[in-house]
């Protein structure tokens, strides 16, 4: 990594020695990411973030289908970057509802895509808030030529990429790499046209000067995560199982998401009558950093659209994301303080 900072500072597009070094490092990073994700190197583009990769992936497929239609079909529980990208272009948006665990039905996606001319269908690999996996390959097999965009930011590195996408997006910080690096995948042969101003880069799907050292760090982190994911995933799945069982024992708790077909490291639950912001702060004071999808914790003051689409309780929500080195002891320590933190907040309101 330090060597990459020394050797990879130059613009990889330049022909001078430092530029060629940077190009070599970038190509190595691209090859490593491709191998780890099981794709071709020429399908990999480094972007400035996962969000940027989502925007380019979805909108590039959309633009390339302009002659067919401009409608976008997406699940109701896509990441906000997908929803905002869809809202940014003209055209009809058909949102496909999910069931109580947050999963779309293949038939519903296919039916929505068949309502009229459809430019692109977006189905996430797994939900970023509740961990539920989506039937991506099954949808892809039934789409009959309509390109599929897969937001794989929540799962990339942790679980294999699903099959059947024309473009996909991933985010390095989600697998433990640096922030500021996203990965756009465009399947060889898929029609994709940049939705943004063109740039004269080595890689036509990128804009601007790639952060070469960070791309290398992202690739190294991805390789490490993929190499140990069988063991890490199994341990995390067992810990999440333990958390779900313990949290279910707390009265008036909604444990959210599919208990089995889910990401290994993520678990989400909501406590009735509890202020999500107060609970996040109470746990932070006890040394635990957790996220929340409750309205009071959002800049928009709107509850999580994912929880809302599932019919889950949106207030008092906690999202626990296990780090790859989280131990049994860490989880037990969390579970030792959680019930009291919840009951103290409930006691404050007399419930």
């Amino acid at each position: 990594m330090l060597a990459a900072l020394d050797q990879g500072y130059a613009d990889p597009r330049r022909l001078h020695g430092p530029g060629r070094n940077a190009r070599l490092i970038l190509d190595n990073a691209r090859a490593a990411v491709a191998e780890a994700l099981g794709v071709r190197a020429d399908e990999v583009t480094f972007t400035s973030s996962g969000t940027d990769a989502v925007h380019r992936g979805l909108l590039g497929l959309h633009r390339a289908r302009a002659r067919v239609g401009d409608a976008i079909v997406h699940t109701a529980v896509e990441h906000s970057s997908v929803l905002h990208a869809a809202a940014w272009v003209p055209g009809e948006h058909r949102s496909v509802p999910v069931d109580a665990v947050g999963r779309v039905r293949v038939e519903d996606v296919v039916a929505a895509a068949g309502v009229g001319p459809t430019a692109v269908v977006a189905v996430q690999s797994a939900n970023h808030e509740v961990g539920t996996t989506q039937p991506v390959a099954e949808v892809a097999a039934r789409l009959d030529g309509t390109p599929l965009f897969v937001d794989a930011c929540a799962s990339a590195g942790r679980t294999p990429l699903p099959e059947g996408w024309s473009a996909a997006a991933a985010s390095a910080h989600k697998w433990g790499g640096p922030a500021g690096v996203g990965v756009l995948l465009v399947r060889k042969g898929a029609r994709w046209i940049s939705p943004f101003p063109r740039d004269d880069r080595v890689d036509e799907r990128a804009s601007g000067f790639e952060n070469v050292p960070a791309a290398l760090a992202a690739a190294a982190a991805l390789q490490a995560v993929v190499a140990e994911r069988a063991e890490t995933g199994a341990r995390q799945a067992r810990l999440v199982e333990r958390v779900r069982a313990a949290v279910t024992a707390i009265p008036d708790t909604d444990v959210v998401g599919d208990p089995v077909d889910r990401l290994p490291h993520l678990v989400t639950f909501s406590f009735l009558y509890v202020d999500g912001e107060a609970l996040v702060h109470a746990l932070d004071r006890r040394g635990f950093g957790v996220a929340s999808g409750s309205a009071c914790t959002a800049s928009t003051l709107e509850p999580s659209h994912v929880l809302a689409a599932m019919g889950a309780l949106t207030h008092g929500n906690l999202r626990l994301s296990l780090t790859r080195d989280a131990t049994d002891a860490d989880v037990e320590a969390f579970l030792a303080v959680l019930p009291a933190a919840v009951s103290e907040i409930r006691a404050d309101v007399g419930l």
Partner: protein
Amino acid sequence: MTAPALELDCRGLLCPLPIIELGRHLTDVSVGELLAVVTTDAAARHDVPAWCRMRGQEYVGEDTAADGAPRFVVRRLS
């Protein structure tokens, strides 16, 4: 919709306060009677039905109060 036995004015209260009020006042109505909460809080549209599911009560539906504020109606089942 028949008039609720009790209507809780939760205008201006943010989540989870409208649901807390619902929990506090459920037993103020008899089993079988309707209890309504009037609130402009965006989360209530999702959380009143979720509360009913979790607490074993019946979600009757949404209408509007005289001033146009959303009103969510539940029936006490137990």
